[in-house]
């Protein structure tokens, strides 16, 4: 399976996402924002960072990048798309996901090992998790507060489209502790925490058994692989 990782000017976690894809057993394909070429990839990751300096609004300029036209079209065809942090912001700006992300309620950037509950394990990116799995992956953002209209929130909650919810503490003031959501079809998922930073023992969050040994994030990437293998 080939998973594309798009690099925008100002992308920061693109190489981390590529590493996560490789560790999951897929091959990583570097995609460039300025082209219209998805190189025939089977799934797409929009990585974290500060694309275009996050000028205007986070993810707003990136959502109008040349390659986004192809990504929107692919998402509508059912190709799995994962937006992490800035990638999540792009997905909302591109209207592939509802709602938006605003400045953390406490006003500061925050980096921490964040507890999450996986509440929907039937999306393209979470099907490898057990139901209601409780996981820990790093969170790091300045504008991670999820907001949406009451109607949209009710719809997301009602349709089970809240994919991951903050556990223990809400780090940014997100409505209903929402950390990540999906579209109706479940192929497009966006979340603020960074699964690509919890994929390799020694470099992830601390766990009870050993320092920096957390690899809970890897399942997001292996999930895509499971889904792909089921279709071929």
């Amino acid at each position: 399976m080939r998973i594309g990782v798009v690099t925008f000017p100002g992308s920061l976690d693109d190489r981390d996402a590529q590493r996560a894809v490789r560790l999951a057993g897929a091959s990583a394909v570097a995609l460039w924002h300025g082209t219209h070429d998805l190189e025939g990839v089977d799934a797409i990751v929009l990585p974290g960072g500060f694309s275009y300096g996050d000028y205007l609004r986070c993810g707003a300029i990136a959502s109008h990048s040349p390659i986004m036209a192809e990504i929107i079209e692919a998402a509508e065809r059912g190709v799995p798309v994962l937006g992490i942090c800035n990638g999540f912001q792009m997905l909302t700006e591109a209207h592939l996901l509802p709602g938006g992300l605003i400045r953390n309620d406490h006003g500061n950037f925050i980096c921490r090992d964040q507890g999450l509950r996986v509440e929907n394990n039937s999306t393209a990116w979470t099907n490898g998790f057990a139901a209601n799995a409780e996981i820990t992956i790093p969170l790091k953002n300045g504008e991670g507060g999820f907001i949406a209209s009451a109607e949209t929130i009710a719809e997301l909650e009602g349709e089970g489209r809240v994919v991951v919810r903050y556990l223990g503490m809400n780090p940014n003031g997100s409505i209903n502790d929402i950390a990540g959501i999906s579209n109706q079809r479940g192929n497009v998922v966006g979340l603020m925490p960074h699964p690509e930073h919890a994929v390799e023992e020694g470099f992830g969050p601390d766990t009870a058994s050993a320092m920096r040994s957390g690899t809970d994030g890897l399942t997001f990437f292996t999930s895509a692989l499971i889904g792909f293998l089921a279709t071929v």
Partner: protein
Amino acid sequence: MTYLRAAADTVANAIATPEKMQPYSALGLKSDEYDMIREILGRRPTSGELAMYSVMWSEHCSYKSSKIYLRQFGEKVSPKMKKDLMVGMGENAGVVDVGEGWAVTFKIESHNHPSYIEPFQGAATGVGGIVRDIISMGARPVAVMDALRFGKIDDPDTARVVHGVVSGISFYGNCLGLPNIGGETWFDPIYQGNPLVNALSVGVLRHEDLHLANARGVGNKVVLFGARTGGDGIGGASILASDTFSAGGPTKRPAVQVGDPFAEKVLIECCLELFAQKLVEGIQDLGAAGISCATSELASNGDGGMFIELERVLLRDPTLTAEEILMSESQERMMAIVTPEKLAGFMAVTAKWDVETSVLGEVTDTGRLIINWHGEEIVNVLPRTVAVDGPVYTRPVAYPTWLDALQADTAAILPRPTDATELRAQLLQLLGSPNLADASWITDQYDRYVMGNTALSFPDDGGMIRVDEESGLGFAIATDANGRYCQLDPYQGAQLALAEAYRNVAATGAKPVAVSDCLNFGSPENPEVMWQFSQTVEGLADGCLELEIPVTGGNVSFYNQTGDKPIHPTPVVAVLGVIDDVGRRIPSGWQDEGHNIYLLGATALELDGSAWAGVIHDHLGGRPPAVSLPNEAALASLLHAAAAQSLIASAHDLSDGGLATALVECVMRFGMGARVWLDEVILRDGVDAATALFSESSGRMIVSVPREDDVKFLGLCKGRDYPVLRLGVTDANEDGLTVQGLFELPLRELRAVHQATLPAHFGA
């Protein structure tokens, strides 16, 4: 500075109007320095030349007061110290061979004055500047760290500076995608009117990717790329960094630069692609003194001259004069030397990254740096006279009149607690004191995960980054300085800073290999400050020679004082270490139960300058702890051997706050409890309980050892004849720390005290 708005002052005009009055003093030059420029040129300088000389001969750029001392770092070296040193002092940053074809470059630099005037931009551009130094060596930046000194924690102005500096570092470093892996934060009233912001960056490169700042090859193009040049930071190096704040407070705002981390991130990727395609012959970043510095340094390090057409510089503000363009410190700019045949390829890469680029001129064989402005010659100088052969001062040095009295005022006579309740209360008071309190409020604002190679970061003793994903080769780095020790004895204080950073790196399991330093001092025009400076450099140079690790570069920051009160001498020492496999790194706290806890090293009554003396008694006097560098080397080698054989599960260095602080930090790191006893330390070292807990004797560490490795570990200690004492055992059934026969400290109480201080002052 309205004079700058006048029409360009040409070389011909300078010859024709020798008597014209020039505002050298407003530009920070002394009258004898101005006379020296006239003598070098054989005429008066043009206003453009005056601008260049004024910034390049500033203390900040020329090291004119420190040069005669800094030479020791190059002179006091052994062959072993040169063996792995690929680039030493004098370049943008030092480069060390770390094996397997990899090299690491690192440097620490000050951005103190801008960070007081405009804390957010000052700190942000401090990060930006040091990162560009790293890129210009041909390296990919992979980590940042920062050493911060603020005023009294409850002074109303401290919050302004802390909020600005921390969010500036957070904003810039996070947007660059560089993990922040450690550093230090101190609060002391001595820094009230002059906070210190020292930023460190580390980069990695393959040996063949090494680049240097020189302009060679007649006909090669001089290319400026990156952000446009604007009016920000004009005279930052000469006026701001090289002068003392007047007591009235900050007023020099226009001299602070404004940073755009997005532009820098794109510039990093652009440069790395240029290096990968081998499109660059020489490269220099634009920092202090901007184009004046880049052109004169590139030309000085080259083999010919340089010709520049200054009107080709792309401007953010078209009204800038030639002099302002020469002096501007606009951020996110680089200058490269490119062969004519590679220019098209170069431009293709910068176009891909949307980085604006303009060819300013070329390398010539005239031996002179000539700059034209719309066809008229406004600069014609020997580049070395600007960049290298500036004035050198042997400033008066005087032993401080107050020092003997200060050293006589020992903390040994202060009342020490003897009963358990008071010992416990003082331990908690120390734990919640600003310099020992949990700094998470700060470090949680920094991304420590980005790039996916962070093997250690705050709160462990040093930061560690994996360099090679296949082999696991990595580096560790730690910074330290204790201004209180240095005030008591700058020679010994400098060696203690070196020893502590060295020990911190050793505690991670890495082998210390190189040093960078940022020397923060008061005014060099004060003979007592110059004495402190001379002692510090001597202490560091002697110390590095004894440990056989070279100083690879760094920075001197003078004029850190408001009014006539200088800061404590604050030499921030960064030590770099190498580890074959980051998988064998050692955390700073206890994670497993049933491990034996050992204290390495001996404890003496050394409370002078300690955190205990400062926090409990508001006292600073006496002589700092003794330092034995051979002992430190033996301890480091012991740790390295134990780590290589995976014999120890954790290691934590003893420094500020002594054994007491180290023990509770080991507990809080992962929440594992422990039982310890002090009787044997008290008996062996002949000290009382308070001294055992709070003394800051050097050469000490706590390690935890799995029972099955006990014999091997003790064998290593015995073989090296290093003092070792079993102090206790980790125990999951213990809630926090129990010091047998004295007191218990439940984990919840420890954390509550430790974590409360910074949020209480700066918000949750």
